[in-house]
């Protein structure tokens, strides 16, 4: 009996927790709607955000934009994309910067500013909540939770 009650209690707890997870909006990668890119694979997104490749397939320069460490979407984005913690992302960029190879993507303070960046740069690319994407941008990759 107590065991069955435990399962019941566990189920109720699970149901209570569940909606909270669903409320969390889906994070997506968006590009400027006029840049000609329709969809990207995970590896292509990694190549752009880690500075390995700076051009889309059609030759347009990719202009990625990032968020500061303090923004929760940054942690979610790199966690979902490569399974890395922010300290590891920052370690990667300190290697690129101090070896003189390249500077990291520009950082803006909020999702609204990410959207603004993507719309105002021909090759703009950033990550935002799906709910925030409008007709001026195109969703090219969805980060599976």
């Amino acid at each position: 009996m107590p065991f069955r009650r435990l399962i019941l209690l566990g189920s109720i707890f699970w149901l209570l927790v569940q909606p909270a997870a669903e409320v969390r909006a889906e994070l997506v990668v968006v590009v400027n709607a006029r840049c000609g890119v329709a969809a990207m694979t995970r590896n292509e997104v990694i190549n752009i955000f880690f500075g390995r490749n700076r051009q889309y397939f059609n030759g347009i320069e990719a202009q990625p934009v990032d968020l500061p460490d303090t923004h929760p979407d940054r942690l979610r984005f790199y966690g979902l994309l490569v399974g890395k913690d922010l300290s590891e992302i920052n370690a990667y960029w300190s290697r690129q910067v101090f070896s003189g190879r390249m500077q990291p993507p520009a950082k803006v303070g909020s999702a609204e500013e990410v959207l603004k960046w993507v719309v105002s740069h021909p090759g703009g690319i950033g990550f935002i909540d799906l709910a925030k994407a409008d007709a001026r941008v195109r969703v090219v990759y969805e980060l599976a939770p």
Partner: protein
Amino acid sequence: MTIANLFRRVAPACSPGRLFLALAGSALLSVAPHVMAESDSALSLNGFGTFGLARTTTDDVEFVRDISQPRGVGKDWSALIDSVLGLQAAWRISPQFEAVVQATSRYRYDRTFTPDISWAFIKYNPTPNLSLRAGRLGTEFFMMADSRWVGYSFLTVRPPGDYFWYLPFYSIHGADAAINLSLGEGVLRTKAFYGHSNGKIPLADEQWDIAGSPMLGGYLEYQRGPWQVRASYANIKFKNDLPIATVLKIPPANISEALNFLSTRGARTHYYSLGVVYDQGPWQAQLMLNHIDQGSNALESSDGGYALAGYRMGTLTPYSGYSWVRSNKQPGLNSSSVPQNEVAAYVMQDSHADQRTIFAGMRWDVVRNVAVKAQWDGIRGEASSLFPYRQDNRARWDGRMDVFSLTMDFVF
């Protein structure tokens, strides 16, 4: 123990560690406006540093980070070999042009922490995936060689010595070109560089001037998802002879036969390497192999490598690895071709390395942009393994020691 004590063995002229501490102080003051690094402005200022302590279990040799260091550490804790401070100013002049200047203060060939301009170059991107640089540049003889001092950027306390001891070269006056090409879902990167080396290598109380020695090299790299594979080649043609007579305080005329035999002037040394990196989720793993083909009888050719793996759990990343280096007499040398001379024998003995190292440690990402690391290295080698060390007591050294290290790395 005072902090100044930790920096002893620097030149008497330079008050121990004062320079480093002054730089560290000013760096800490400038940590506050770190927002500069995050703004979209044309000028970015960034810095990196390490305060590191190390000790070994023997005083028979002194342990160094690489052979650019004239003295090393023994049984007493010392901050000499791993402490560093670097500052970089990068100015984006236009979307295509960028100027970068970086200064580094670390224990160097002349036993001081005198800051060096490590890089000063102009970068030009005619297209987004083509980069051309000219000026004073870092050299990538091996993978990660140009970020060896940025402790925050890697897992271990210092890059494995068995792999990097032989690489005291840091910069060239010259130019390089790198091109990135999309290949499937991966990226193929090719880089080539040419220039004249810049610097000095300590040899006992003297220095070997390698400035003006031509260097040439390049690599081919493929990166896809978590995988990175790179093959590289580089060479250097030494401009000067080793200062052997000066070191041994013998008139050169008395040992001219040995000096001719050990000449490095005009000798070309070749560096080959192969690296594989896997970096995904909590896992990080690296396998690196190198072969160095020395062009002079004074230095032995060698093979080295390391394997390293780490697994992150929250803010803690335990890691472990194994490295090795083994050098061999130059092929074609036999007892009849080597001058029957104590000097030649001594110098050749000095360039021998034959050892293996097991290491294990932990990286702790304490707060944003600060990591604390603790590491143990168990060096197990032959008594003849002398090349990587300083101030050896050949009669007593048995090739075995443990190294304990504790560092705090930061970037800002």
